[in-house]
């Protein structure tokens, strides 16, 4: 049988035990989602996350600039009036679409801001899972060339 699969099962069992013993958090037990972060396209990532084809929702706001002075640091925040369980940031034209994913426990507001890298001007998606449903907001962010050495 598949050796890798067996050892993976073994790890899950250990992580499960540690999690139930309160040694590590749920997210750490839920290992880093390699497949999702290596997904090349939006659709691929949606599929891996089990998001299907998310609808656009006016209840989600993407806080991001229209123009980024530098693609190395692009501030992106997601807020929603819904009770979010998960919030993710995806960049359509990056080599891998998924930039970051957050799990929002009860008691934490449906708001998160971070900074991401963008290789070029692209649509950026804020994907939210709320009440078991997947919804999203989209915004184009222009990445400009800056400085005299550009």
């Amino acid at each position, binding site marked *: 049988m598949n050796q890798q699969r067996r050892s993976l099962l073994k790890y899950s069992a250990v992580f499960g035990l540690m999690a139930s013993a309160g040694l590590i*958090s*749920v*997210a*750490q037990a839920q290992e*880093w*989602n390699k497949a999702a*972060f290596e997904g090349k396209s939006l659709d691929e990532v949606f599929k891996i996350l089990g998001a299907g084809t998310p609808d656009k929702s006016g209840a989600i706001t993407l806080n991001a600039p229209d123009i980024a002075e530098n693609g*190395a*640091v*692009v*501030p992106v*925040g997601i807020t929603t009036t819904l009770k979010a369980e998960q919030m993710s940031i995806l*960049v359509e034209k*990056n*080599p*891998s679409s*998924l*930039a*970051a*994913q*957050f*799990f*929002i*426990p009860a*008691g*934490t*507001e449906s*708001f*998160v*801001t*971070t*900074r*991401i*890298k*963008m*290789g070029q001007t692209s649509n950026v998606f804020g994907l939210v899972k709320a009440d078991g449903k997947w919804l999203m907001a989209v915004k184009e962010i222009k990445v400009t060339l800056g400085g005299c050495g550009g």
Partner: protein
Amino acid sequence: MADPMRVRAAESGGVVDVKILMKHDMESGQRKDAAGKTIPAWFISTINVKANGKDVLNGQFGPAVSKDPFLNFKYKGAKGDKIVVSWVDSKGDKRTDEATAS
């Protein structure tokens, strides 16, 4: 060992605003060195934030999160909450820092 984070937590109206700066190169795996060789990806992959021992945020990063990552979120809490932030990177390096909500 990894460099310390800066963790700030300020309570207002029953909501604690948490701002975290992490010191990490967040190597994208897309860059090339002077010799033209690709620099392998190396980035913080998971982050966990607890307040008084209870999870208030779990996150997963890909290599597209900026160098020296910044994170801002809010949870229902109180002054004096003990906030513990931990991250693990793609090479297994770890770092944990604490702050008290003010």
